[in-house]
Protein backbone atom coordinates (compact mmCIF):
# COMPACT_ATOMS: atom_id res chain seq x y z
CA UNK A 1 0.00 0.00 0.00
CA UNK A 2 1.77 3.00 -1.27
CA UNK A 3 -0.26 5.91 -0.04
CA UNK A 4 -1.57 6.30 3.47
CA UNK A 5 -5.24 6.79 3.99
CA UNK A 6 -6.21 9.90 5.78
CA UNK A 7 -8.86 8.27 7.90
CA UNK A 8 -6.37 6.74 10.29
CA UNK A 9 -7.65 5.22 13.44
CA UNK A 10 -5.19 5.05 16.30
CA UNK A 11 -6.62 2.61 18.80
CA UNK A 12 -4.84 2.52 22.15
CA UNK A 13 -6.79 0.13 24.33
CA UNK A 14 -7.34 -2.51 21.68
CA UNK A 15 -3.60 -2.78 21.09
CA UNK A 16 -2.94 -3.51 24.72
CA UNK A 17 -5.71 -6.05 24.73
CA UNK A 18 -4.30 -7.86 21.73
CA UNK A 19 -0.85 -7.88 23.29
CA UNK A 20 -2.06 -9.35 26.54
CA UNK A 21 -4.09 -11.94 24.68
CA UNK A 22 -1.01 -13.01 22.76
CA UNK A 23 0.98 -13.33 25.99
CA UNK A 24 -1.80 -15.38 27.49
CA UNK A 25 -1.80 -17.65 24.45
CA UNK A 26 1.94 -18.22 24.82
CA UNK A 27 1.67 -19.01 28.54
CA UNK A 28 -1.19 -21.40 27.94
CA UNK A 29 0.73 -23.04 25.10
CA UNK A 30 3.76 -23.39 27.34
CA UNK A 31 1.89 -25.19 30.07
CA UNK A 32 -0.04 -27.12 27.47
CA UNK A 33 3.14 -28.48 25.91
CA UNK A 34 4.57 -29.21 29.33
CA UNK A 35 1.45 -31.09 30.34
CA UNK A 36 1.37 -32.97 27.07
CA UNK A 37 5.05 -33.87 27.35
CA UNK A 38 4.63 -35.52 30.69
CA UNK A 39 1.40 -37.24 29.78
CA UNK A 40 0.93 -38.65 26.29
CA UNK A 41 4.35 -37.28 25.24
CA UNK A 42 5.99 -39.66 27.67
CA UNK A 43 9.02 -37.57 28.29
CA UNK A 44 11.21 -38.84 31.05
CA UNK A 45 10.36 -37.27 34.37
CA UNK A 46 14.08 -36.76 34.68
CA UNK A 47 13.92 -34.02 32.09
CA UNK A 48 10.35 -32.93 32.32
CA UNK A 49 8.99 -33.35 35.80
CA UNK A 50 5.28 -33.24 36.37
CA UNK A 51 3.94 -29.75 36.76
CA UNK A 52 2.26 -30.80 39.98
CA UNK A 53 5.50 -32.15 41.39
CA UNK A 54 7.34 -28.96 40.67
CA UNK A 55 4.77 -26.87 42.48
CA UNK A 56 4.65 -29.31 45.37
CA UNK A 57 8.39 -29.09 45.74
CA UNK A 58 8.14 -25.34 45.41
CA UNK A 59 5.79 -25.03 48.34
CA UNK A 60 7.47 -27.62 50.53
CA UNK A 61 10.64 -25.74 49.80
CA UNK A 62 9.22 -22.53 51.03
CA UNK A 63 8.18 -24.25 54.23
CA UNK A 64 11.58 -25.80 54.88
CA UNK A 65 14.39 -23.72 56.33
CA UNK A 66 16.99 -24.63 53.77
CA UNK A 67 15.97 -22.15 51.16
CA UNK A 68 15.87 -19.24 53.56
CA UNK A 69 19.33 -20.00 54.76
CA UNK A 70 20.57 -20.14 51.20
CA UNK A 71 18.68 -16.96 50.35
CA UNK A 72 20.31 -15.18 53.24
CA UNK A 73 23.76 -16.22 52.03
CA UNK A 74 23.07 -15.14 48.48
CA UNK A 75 21.66 -11.80 49.53
CA UNK A 76 24.55 -11.03 51.82
CA UNK A 77 27.02 -11.80 49.08
CA UNK A 78 25.00 -9.70 46.67
CA UNK A 79 24.76 -6.66 48.88
CA UNK A 80 28.36 -6.64 50.01
CA UNK A 81 29.68 -7.27 46.51
CA UNK A 82 27.53 -4.46 45.18
CA UNK A 83 28.64 -2.11 47.91
CA UNK A 84 32.31 -2.80 47.37
CA UNK A 85 32.04 -2.77 43.59
CA UNK A 86 29.97 0.39 43.41
CA UNK A 87 31.90 2.40 45.96
CA UNK A 88 35.29 1.59 44.50
CA UNK A 89 33.88 2.28 41.05
CA UNK A 90 32.62 5.71 42.12
CA UNK A 91 35.94 6.52 43.72
CA UNK A 92 37.97 5.49 40.70
CA UNK A 93 35.63 7.22 38.28
CA UNK A 94 35.61 10.37 40.33
CA UNK A 95 39.36 10.47 40.63
CA UNK A 96 39.89 9.74 36.95
CA UNK A 97 37.39 12.32 35.81
CA UNK A 98 39.30 15.19 37.28
CA UNK A 99 41.82 15.56 34.49
CA UNK A 100 41.76 14.79 30.82
CA UNK A 101 44.89 12.65 30.96
CA UNK A 102 43.63 10.47 33.78
CA UNK A 103 40.32 9.94 32.04
CA UNK A 104 41.89 9.08 28.72
CA UNK A 105 44.22 6.54 30.33
CA UNK A 106 41.70 4.97 32.68
CA UNK A 107 38.81 4.68 30.27
CA UNK A 108 40.39 2.11 27.94
CA UNK A 109 41.52 0.13 30.97
CA UNK A 110 37.94 0.01 32.17
CA UNK A 111 36.70 -1.02 28.75
CA UNK A 112 39.23 -3.81 28.60
CA UNK A 113 38.30 -4.95 32.07
CA UNK A 114 34.73 -5.13 30.83
CA UNK A 115 35.62 -6.98 27.63
CA UNK A 116 37.50 -9.74 29.41
CA UNK A 117 35.41 -12.83 30.29
CA UNK A 118 35.80 -12.44 34.02
CA UNK A 119 34.50 -15.91 34.81
CA UNK A 120 37.90 -17.25 33.81
CA UNK A 121 39.45 -15.61 36.84
CA UNK A 122 37.06 -17.31 39.21
CA UNK A 123 39.06 -20.54 39.69
CA UNK A 124 42.05 -18.43 40.70
CA UNK A 125 39.92 -16.45 43.11
CA UNK A 126 38.70 -19.72 44.61
CA UNK A 127 42.31 -20.72 45.05
CA UNK A 128 43.02 -17.54 46.97
CA UNK A 129 39.87 -17.15 48.98
CA UNK A 130 38.42 -20.62 49.24
CA UNK A 131 34.90 -21.72 48.45
CA UNK A 132 33.18 -19.59 51.02
CA UNK A 133 31.33 -16.34 50.68
CA UNK A 134 34.39 -14.15 50.30
CA UNK A 135 35.31 -15.59 46.92
CA UNK A 136 31.83 -14.89 45.59
CA UNK A 137 31.97 -11.36 46.92
CA UNK A 138 35.40 -10.71 45.46
CA UNK A 139 34.43 -12.10 42.08
CA UNK A 140 31.11 -10.31 41.83
CA UNK A 141 32.55 -7.04 43.07
CA UNK A 142 35.38 -7.12 40.56
CA UNK A 143 32.99 -7.92 37.73
CA UNK A 144 30.56 -5.18 38.59
CA UNK A 145 33.34 -2.67 39.14
CA UNK A 146 34.15 -2.18 35.47
CA UNK A 147 30.78 -1.32 33.96
CA UNK A 148 29.87 0.90 36.90
CA UNK A 149 33.19 2.71 36.80
CA UNK A 150 33.00 3.12 33.04
CA UNK A 151 29.54 4.58 33.12
CA UNK A 152 30.35 6.83 36.05
CA UNK A 153 33.48 8.08 34.35
CA UNK A 154 31.44 8.91 31.28
CA UNK A 155 28.85 10.54 33.49
CA UNK A 156 31.32 12.69 35.39
CA UNK A 157 33.17 13.69 32.26
CA UNK A 158 30.22 14.64 30.18
CA UNK A 159 28.68 17.20 32.45
CA UNK A 160 27.06 19.75 30.22
CA UNK A 161 29.41 22.74 29.99
CA UNK A 162 26.34 24.94 30.34
CA UNK A 163 26.03 23.96 33.97
CA UNK A 164 29.68 24.45 34.66
CA UNK A 165 29.58 27.90 33.13
CA UNK A 166 26.51 28.69 35.18
CA UNK A 167 28.21 27.67 38.38
CA UNK A 168 31.25 29.68 37.58
CA UNK A 169 29.17 32.72 36.75
CA UNK A 170 27.56 32.53 40.16
CA UNK A 171 30.90 32.21 41.89
CA UNK A 172 30.56 28.63 43.05
CA UNK A 173 33.54 27.32 44.99
CA UNK A 174 35.26 24.20 43.64
CA UNK A 175 33.58 22.15 46.32
CA UNK A 176 30.16 23.51 45.46
CA UNK A 177 30.85 22.91 41.80
CA UNK A 178 31.69 19.31 42.51
CA UNK A 179 28.69 18.46 44.58
CA UNK A 180 25.86 20.69 43.60
CA UNK A 181 26.48 20.99 39.94
CA UNK A 182 28.64 18.26 38.51
CA UNK A 183 27.41 15.55 40.79
CA UNK A 184 23.74 16.23 40.24
CA UNK A 185 24.14 16.57 36.51
CA UNK A 186 25.84 13.22 36.29
CA UNK A 187 23.22 11.32 38.24
CA UNK A 188 21.22 9.88 35.33
CA UNK A 189 24.19 8.29 33.56
CA UNK A 190 25.69 7.11 36.82
CA UNK A 191 22.37 5.59 37.81
CA UNK A 192 22.28 3.74 34.50
CA UNK A 193 25.73 2.32 35.23
CA UNK A 194 24.63 1.35 38.69
CA UNK A 195 21.61 -0.46 37.32
CA UNK A 196 23.83 -2.45 34.99
CA UNK A 197 26.13 -3.16 37.92
CA UNK A 198 23.28 -4.45 40.04
CA UNK A 199 22.08 -6.79 37.34
CA UNK A 200 25.60 -8.00 36.73
CA UNK A 201 26.24 -8.58 40.43
CA UNK A 202 23.10 -10.67 40.68
CA UNK A 203 24.19 -12.78 37.74
CA UNK A 204 27.78 -13.24 38.85
CA UNK A 205 26.89 -14.15 42.43
CA UNK A 206 24.60 -16.90 41.19
CA UNK A 207 27.11 -18.15 38.63
CA UNK A 208 29.81 -18.24 41.28
CA UNK A 209 27.57 -20.16 43.65
CA UNK A 210 26.75 -22.65 40.94
CA UNK A 211 30.36 -23.19 40.01
CA UNK A 212 31.82 -23.65 43.44
CA UNK A 213 30.23 -22.92 46.77
CA UNK A 214 29.03 -24.31 50.08
CA UNK A 215 25.76 -22.47 50.33
CA UNK A 216 23.53 -20.07 48.50
CA UNK A 217 20.68 -20.39 46.01
CA UNK A 218 23.01 -21.22 43.12
CA UNK A 219 24.65 -23.89 45.20
CA UNK A 220 21.29 -25.44 46.03
CA UNK A 221 20.38 -25.51 42.36
CA UNK A 222 23.57 -27.29 41.45
CA UNK A 223 23.23 -29.73 44.33
CA UNK A 224 19.71 -30.80 43.49
CA UNK A 225 20.22 -30.95 39.77
CA UNK A 226 23.27 -33.12 40.21
CA UNK A 227 21.41 -35.46 42.52
CA UNK A 228 18.81 -35.81 39.81
CA UNK A 229 16.03 -34.38 41.88
CA UNK A 230 14.68 -32.66 38.84
CA UNK A 231 11.39 -31.48 40.26
CA UNK A 232 13.16 -29.84 43.15
CA UNK A 233 15.73 -28.18 40.93
CA UNK A 234 12.95 -26.75 38.75
CA UNK A 235 11.36 -25.49 41.93
CA UNK A 236 14.60 -23.79 42.88
CA UNK A 237 14.73 -22.15 39.47
CA UNK A 238 11.31 -20.77 40.27
CA UNK A 239 12.47 -19.47 43.60
CA UNK A 240 15.46 -17.80 42.01
CA UNK A 241 13.26 -16.23 39.34
CA UNK A 242 11.07 -14.84 42.08
CA UNK A 243 14.00 -13.44 43.99
CA UNK A 244 15.45 -11.92 40.82
CA UNK A 245 12.09 -10.38 39.99
CA UNK A 246 11.78 -8.85 43.44
CA UNK A 247 15.35 -7.64 43.27
CA UNK A 248 14.71 -5.82 40.00
CA UNK A 249 11.52 -4.31 41.34
CA UNK A 250 13.50 -2.99 44.26
CA UNK A 251 16.13 -1.56 41.96
CA UNK A 252 13.60 0.15 39.75
CA UNK A 253 12.18 1.78 42.86
CA UNK A 254 15.55 2.88 44.20
CA UNK A 255 17.03 3.85 40.85
CA UNK A 256 14.12 4.99 38.76
CA UNK A 257 14.79 5.90 35.17
CA UNK A 258 13.73 9.46 35.68
CA UNK A 259 16.15 10.07 38.47
CA UNK A 260 17.23 13.44 37.21
CA UNK A 261 13.74 14.74 37.61
CA UNK A 262 13.50 13.51 41.13
CA UNK A 263 17.04 14.31 42.23
Amino acid at each position, binding site marked *: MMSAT*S*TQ*VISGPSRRLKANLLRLVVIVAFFGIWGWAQGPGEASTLIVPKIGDVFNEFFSFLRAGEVYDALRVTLIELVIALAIGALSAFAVAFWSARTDLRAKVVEPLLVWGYLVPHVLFYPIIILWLGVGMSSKIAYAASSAFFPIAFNCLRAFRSVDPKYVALGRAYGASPRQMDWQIKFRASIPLAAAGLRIGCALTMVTVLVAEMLSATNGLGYLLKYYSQSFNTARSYAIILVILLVVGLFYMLISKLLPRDMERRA
Partner: protein
Amino acid sequence: MALQAKNLEVTYRTADGRSVPALTDINLDIADREFVTIIGPSGCGKSTLLKCFGGLLSPSSGEVSVNSEAVTEPDPNRAAFVFQDYTLLPWKNVLDNAAVGLHFDGKSKDECRAKGQEMLELVGLSEFAKQYPRELSGGMQQRVAVARAMAMDPDILLMDEPFGALDEQTRQKLGSEMGRILTETERSVVMVTHSLDEAVFWADRIIVLSARPGRIAKEIEVKAPRPRSLSFIGTDEFAMIRSELFRLLEVPSAMAGASSTDAAAGQ
Protein backbone atom coordinates in the same frame (compact mmCIF):
# COMPACT_ATOMS: atom_id res chain seq x y z
CA MET B 1 -4.35 20.84 -17.40
CA ALA B 2 -1.42 19.58 -15.43
CA LEU B 3 -3.12 19.01 -12.10
CA GLN B 4 -6.70 19.14 -11.08
CA ALA B 5 -8.22 18.83 -7.63
CA LYS B 6 -11.98 18.38 -7.41
CA ASN B 7 -13.96 18.70 -4.21
CA LEU B 8 -11.01 17.57 -2.20
CA GLU B 9 -11.64 16.78 1.42
CA VAL B 10 -9.31 15.32 4.01
CA THR B 11 -10.60 14.22 7.37
CA TYR B 12 -8.70 12.60 10.22
CA ARG B 13 -10.33 10.35 12.74
CA THR B 14 -8.95 10.50 16.25
CA ALA B 15 -8.67 7.69 18.78
CA ASP B 16 -11.99 8.51 20.39
CA GLY B 17 -13.81 8.41 17.09
CA ARG B 18 -14.11 12.11 16.44
CA SER B 19 -13.67 13.41 12.92
CA VAL B 20 -11.28 16.27 12.49
CA PRO B 21 -11.47 17.93 9.10
CA ALA B 22 -8.10 19.08 7.83
CA LEU B 23 -9.04 20.26 4.36
CA THR B 24 -12.38 20.91 2.82
CA ASP B 25 -13.89 22.03 -0.44
CA ILE B 26 -10.64 22.31 -2.36
CA ASN B 27 -11.08 22.91 -6.03
CA LEU B 28 -7.99 23.81 -7.96
CA ASP B 29 -6.72 23.72 -11.51
CA ILE B 30 -3.05 24.10 -12.16
CA ALA B 31 -1.89 24.66 -15.69
CA ASP B 32 1.24 23.46 -17.42
CA ARG B 33 4.32 25.54 -16.58
CA GLU B 34 2.41 27.35 -13.90
CA PHE B 35 4.12 28.16 -10.61
CA VAL B 36 1.70 28.07 -7.74
CA THR B 37 2.53 28.85 -4.14
CA ILE B 38 0.33 27.82 -1.28
CA ILE B 39 0.35 29.80 1.92
CA GLY B 40 -1.74 29.87 5.04
CA PRO B 41 -1.62 29.89 8.83
CA SER B 42 0.03 27.05 10.73
CA GLY B 43 -1.95 23.87 10.72
CA CYS B 44 -4.16 24.86 7.84
CA GLY B 45 -3.26 21.74 5.93
CA LYS B 46 -0.83 23.06 3.34
CA SER B 47 1.46 20.05 3.59
CA THR B 48 -1.53 17.74 3.64
CA LEU B 49 -2.74 19.26 0.41
CA LEU B 50 0.63 18.82 -1.21
CA LYS B 51 0.74 15.19 -0.15
CA CYS B 52 -2.65 14.64 -1.73
CA PHE B 53 -1.40 16.16 -4.95
CA GLY B 54 1.50 13.75 -4.96
CA GLY B 55 -0.42 10.66 -3.98
CA LEU B 56 1.26 10.25 -0.60
CA LEU B 57 -2.11 10.68 1.01
CA SER B 58 -5.56 9.66 -0.19
CA PRO B 59 -8.26 12.26 0.30
CA SER B 60 -11.37 11.31 2.24
CA SER B 61 -13.45 12.46 -0.67
CA GLY B 62 -12.98 14.16 -3.97
CA GLU B 63 -10.16 13.40 -6.34
CA VAL B 64 -6.89 14.54 -7.72
CA SER B 65 -5.92 13.99 -11.31
CA VAL B 66 -2.82 14.75 -13.27
CA ASN B 67 -3.11 14.97 -17.05
CA SER B 68 -6.59 13.53 -16.64
CA GLU B 69 -5.32 10.45 -14.86
CA ALA B 70 -6.47 9.89 -11.30
CA VAL B 71 -3.80 10.05 -8.64
CA THR B 72 -3.99 7.11 -6.26
CA GLU B 73 -0.38 6.53 -5.32
CA PRO B 74 2.94 8.35 -5.62
CA ASP B 75 4.59 8.39 -9.01
CA PRO B 76 7.76 10.43 -9.04
CA ASN B 77 7.80 10.56 -12.82
CA ARG B 78 4.54 12.38 -12.61
CA ALA B 79 5.03 14.50 -9.52
CA ALA B 80 8.27 14.59 -7.56
CA PHE B 81 8.62 15.86 -4.01
CA VAL B 82 11.12 18.17 -2.42
CA PHE B 83 10.63 17.93 1.33
CA GLN B 84 11.38 20.23 4.19
CA ASP B 85 14.41 19.08 6.16
CA TYR B 86 15.87 17.94 2.87
CA THR B 87 15.59 14.31 4.05
CA LEU B 88 18.57 13.01 2.18
CA LEU B 89 19.51 9.47 3.09
CA PRO B 90 22.54 9.93 5.34
CA TRP B 91 24.19 6.65 4.40
CA LYS B 92 24.23 7.33 0.70
CA ASN B 93 26.61 9.79 -0.91
CA VAL B 94 25.40 12.85 -2.71
CA LEU B 95 25.38 11.23 -6.14
CA ASP B 96 23.41 8.21 -4.95
CA ASN B 97 20.98 10.47 -3.19
CA ALA B 98 20.38 12.50 -6.33
CA ALA B 99 19.76 9.32 -8.30
CA VAL B 100 17.77 7.50 -5.63
CA GLY B 101 14.48 7.83 -7.48
CA LEU B 102 15.96 6.17 -10.53
CA HIS B 103 17.48 3.51 -8.31
CA PHE B 104 14.08 2.75 -6.84
CA ASP B 105 12.69 2.60 -10.36
CA GLY B 106 15.11 -0.18 -11.15
CA LYS B 107 17.32 1.72 -13.52
CA SER B 108 20.83 0.41 -14.08
CA LYS B 109 23.78 1.69 -12.12
CA ASP B 110 25.19 3.46 -15.15
CA GLU B 111 21.93 5.21 -15.90
CA CYS B 112 21.65 6.29 -12.30
CA ARG B 113 25.17 7.58 -12.20
CA ALA B 114 24.84 9.49 -15.45
CA LYS B 115 21.55 11.15 -14.66
CA GLY B 116 22.62 11.85 -11.11
CA GLN B 117 25.78 13.55 -12.33
CA GLU B 118 23.76 15.60 -14.80
CA MET B 119 21.41 16.79 -12.09
CA LEU B 120 24.23 17.65 -9.72
CA GLU B 121 25.75 19.80 -12.43
CA LEU B 122 22.40 21.48 -12.87
CA VAL B 123 22.34 22.51 -9.22
CA GLY B 124 26.05 23.26 -9.16
CA LEU B 125 27.21 20.49 -6.86
CA SER B 126 29.06 18.14 -9.18
CA GLU B 127 32.31 18.27 -7.17
CA PHE B 128 30.49 17.00 -4.11
CA ALA B 129 29.25 13.81 -5.70
CA LYS B 130 31.22 11.51 -3.43
CA GLN B 131 30.59 13.37 -0.19
CA TYR B 132 28.05 12.39 2.40
CA PRO B 133 25.11 14.58 3.39
CA ARG B 134 26.48 15.35 6.82
CA GLU B 135 29.48 17.04 5.21
CA LEU B 136 27.25 19.47 3.35
CA SER B 137 25.61 22.66 4.54
CA GLY B 138 21.83 22.96 4.75
CA GLY B 139 21.59 24.92 1.54
CA MET B 140 23.67 22.38 -0.31
CA GLN B 141 21.64 19.50 0.99
CA GLN B 142 18.50 21.19 -0.20
CA ARG B 143 19.99 21.58 -3.66
CA VAL B 144 20.65 17.86 -3.71
CA ALA B 145 17.03 17.31 -2.75
CA VAL B 146 15.98 19.43 -5.72
CA ALA B 147 18.36 17.47 -7.96
CA ARG B 148 16.77 14.29 -6.68
CA ALA B 149 13.34 15.51 -7.69
CA MET B 150 14.44 16.85 -11.06
CA ALA B 151 16.20 13.61 -11.90
CA MET B 152 12.79 12.03 -12.31
CA ASP B 153 11.87 14.48 -15.06
CA PRO B 154 8.51 15.03 -13.44
CA ASP B 155 5.64 16.95 -14.94
CA ILE B 156 5.06 18.55 -11.60
CA LEU B 157 7.44 19.59 -8.85
CA LEU B 158 5.93 19.50 -5.37
CA MET B 159 7.91 21.49 -2.85
CA ASP B 160 7.01 21.46 0.83
CA GLU B 161 8.57 24.51 2.48
CA PRO B 162 11.84 23.72 0.72
CA PHE B 163 13.65 26.67 2.20
CA GLY B 164 11.99 26.42 5.57
CA ALA B 165 14.92 24.93 7.43
CA LEU B 166 17.38 27.52 6.19
CA ASP B 167 18.31 30.86 7.61
CA GLU B 168 17.44 34.05 5.82
CA GLN B 169 20.79 34.60 4.17
CA THR B 170 21.10 31.08 2.82
CA ARG B 171 17.54 31.26 1.67
CA GLN B 172 18.15 34.36 -0.42
CA LYS B 173 21.35 32.99 -1.85
CA LEU B 174 19.69 29.73 -2.67
CA GLY B 175 16.79 31.60 -4.11
CA SER B 176 18.86 33.33 -6.71
CA GLU B 177 20.71 30.11 -7.55
CA MET B 178 17.58 28.07 -7.76
CA GLY B 179 15.73 30.77 -9.56
CA ARG B 180 17.14 29.78 -12.88
CA ILE B 181 16.38 26.12 -12.40
CA LEU B 182 12.95 26.55 -11.02
CA THR B 183 11.74 29.12 -13.49
CA GLU B 184 13.32 27.86 -16.67
CA THR B 185 11.78 24.52 -16.10
CA GLU B 186 8.94 23.31 -18.24
CA ARG B 187 7.25 21.79 -15.30
CA SER B 188 4.49 23.02 -13.12
CA VAL B 189 5.60 23.77 -9.63
CA VAL B 190 3.52 23.74 -6.49
CA MET B 191 5.36 25.21 -3.54
CA VAL B 192 4.13 25.35 0.01
CA THR B 193 5.66 28.10 2.05
CA HIS B 194 5.04 30.09 5.20
CA SER B 195 7.16 32.98 4.01
CA LEU B 196 5.16 35.81 2.51
CA ASP B 197 8.12 37.00 0.47
CA GLU B 198 8.65 33.62 -1.05
CA ALA B 199 5.00 33.19 -1.82
CA VAL B 200 4.93 36.36 -3.86
CA PHE B 201 8.37 36.15 -5.40
CA TRP B 202 8.05 32.79 -7.04
CA ALA B 203 4.45 32.50 -7.97
CA ASP B 204 2.27 33.01 -10.98
CA ARG B 205 -0.57 32.39 -8.61
CA ILE B 206 -0.83 32.38 -4.84
CA ILE B 207 -3.34 30.15 -3.11
CA VAL B 208 -4.21 31.34 0.37
CA LEU B 209 -5.65 28.71 2.66
CA SER B 210 -7.73 29.52 5.67
CA ALA B 211 -7.15 28.07 9.11
CA ARG B 212 -8.37 24.55 9.82
CA PRO B 213 -10.41 23.27 8.19
CA GLY B 214 -8.36 24.57 5.34
CA ARG B 215 -10.22 25.91 2.37
CA ILE B 216 -9.17 28.23 -0.39
CA ALA B 217 -9.70 31.68 1.01
CA LYS B 218 -8.23 33.58 -1.90
CA GLU B 219 -6.31 33.19 -5.10
CA ILE B 220 -3.99 36.00 -6.07
CA GLU B 221 -2.36 36.38 -9.44
CA VAL B 222 1.11 37.75 -9.77
CA LYS B 223 1.38 39.26 -13.18
CA ALA B 224 5.10 40.04 -13.33
CA PRO B 225 6.79 37.82 -15.89
CA ARG B 226 9.13 35.09 -14.80
CA PRO B 227 12.08 34.60 -14.33
CA ARG B 228 12.25 37.44 -11.84
CA SER B 229 15.39 38.98 -10.44
CA LEU B 230 15.67 39.98 -6.81
CA SER B 231 14.79 43.52 -7.79
CA PHE B 232 11.22 42.38 -8.13
CA ILE B 233 11.05 42.57 -4.38
CA GLY B 234 11.32 46.33 -4.57
CA THR B 235 8.45 46.82 -7.00
CA ASP B 236 5.00 48.14 -6.23
CA GLU B 237 3.23 45.02 -7.37
CA PHE B 238 5.27 42.99 -4.91
CA ALA B 239 4.54 45.36 -2.08
CA MET B 240 0.83 45.42 -2.80
CA ILE B 241 0.41 41.70 -3.00
CA ARG B 242 2.57 41.16 0.03
CA SER B 243 0.57 43.53 2.15
CA GLU B 244 -2.60 41.85 0.97
CA LEU B 245 -1.19 38.53 2.10
CA PHE B 246 -0.17 40.07 5.38
CA ARG B 247 -3.65 41.37 5.91
CA LEU B 248 -5.19 38.00 5.19
CA LEU B 249 -2.84 36.06 7.36
CA GLU B 250 -2.11 38.34 10.25
CA VAL B 251 -5.48 39.99 10.68
CA PRO B 252 -7.91 37.39 12.05
CA SER B 253 -11.10 38.76 10.60
CA ALA B 254 -9.71 39.36 7.14
CA MET B 255 -9.60 35.68 6.29
CA ALA B 256 -13.20 35.18 7.25
CA GLY B 257 -14.20 37.96 4.92
CA ALA B 258 -12.46 36.47 1.94
CA SER B 259 -14.03 33.55 0.19
CA SER B 260 -13.25 31.41 -2.77
CA THR B 261 -15.56 33.46 -4.94
CA ASP B 262 -12.98 36.19 -4.72
CA ALA B 263 -10.56 33.86 -6.37
CA ALA B 264 -9.36 34.30 -9.90
CA ALA B 265 -10.47 37.91 -9.74
CA GLY B 266 -6.83 38.83 -9.49
CA GLN B 267 -6.88 41.39 -6.71
